[in-house]
């Protein structure tokens, strides 16, 4: 059982949908949305939020710094 639960908040309007965060996530939390933002990018979002442990791998690899990471001990 995970000792932490995490969550990310993506600034969807600034996300460029490069997908780097998806490969960076060790637990398959993130996917690209079917919808696009105002620039026409499919932005990333937490598709499987229950799996997130707040490791921040997505955020530290995000070239545009659009991901905020939250982490709570259980």
């Amino acid at each position, binding site marked *: 059982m995970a000792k932490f639960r995490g*969550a990310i908040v993506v600034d969807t309007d600034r996300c460029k949908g490069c997908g780097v965060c998806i490969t960076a996530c060790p637990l398959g939390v993130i996917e690209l949305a079917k919808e696009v933002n105002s620039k026409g990018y499919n932005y990333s979002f937490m598709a499987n939020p229950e799996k997130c442990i707040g490791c921040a791998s997505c955020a530290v690899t995000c*070239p545009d710094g659009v991901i*905020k990471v939250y982490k709570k001990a259980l």
Partner: protein
Amino acid sequence: MSEITLQDIIQPENLVYEKSKLLTDKRFHYCPGCGHGTVHRIIAEVIEELGIDEETIGIAPVGCAVMAYDYFDVDFQEAAHGRAPALATGIKRVWPNKVVFTYQGDGDLAAIGTAETIHACNRGENITMIFVNNGIYGMTGGQMAPTTLEGMKTATTPYGRKPQWEDGTPNNGFPLQITKLVAQLPGTRFVTRQAVYDAAKVRNCKKAIKKAFQNQMENKNGVNFVEIVSNCNSNWKMSAVDANKWLQENMLPVYPLGDIKDNFELINK
């Protein structure tokens, strides 16, 4: 226990990561997935963590990062193509108490600015040089860089970079090992090669950049030189994720990661 909701987690006290406050609100103009953004982010984090934002003066290059000055909330000067090490020298010599860093790409640092790079390193200026190497000219549309790999296709080597013709007559020349070269100079204190394609590499790279700034802050003489092997998915003509894979398979054998020199001592591998 399973009752915990996203709202419970997304609370200010649980925030563990957000982009540095030393980045302005301006959106990066870089292509999706470009390593420049990541490198900008970690430099800003380092400056913030070291508390040197009031003492730092950055030098932007000509190349994709030409407008880096718009993104960092610290004083910045924009250099002519390749001249950033001369600018850094100019500032550091008259303001030895300031923290001065250059941010340059491969064309800027290793082609048009080779003389400035070599001589700033040879004088051992007490500065930090950040060198982003993606083996191609990004801003002008994907032409050959000094660090372009052998066989690599670019707009000016459409059939692949061919250092020499079959009979040995010169053609495009070889990938320039500029980082190895500056490591040979007595003026460089710390020379390292890093990458930012995954989280572990980003964390290592940040440590290296931090050291490169700390050395300068502590008035340890000598150039602190951090190469970051990065991507250019647009001009490599692949997705960001594929570019990061390609980088590992093709760039890293030629430009292997790790410290090359520390405390003026070459590290033997």
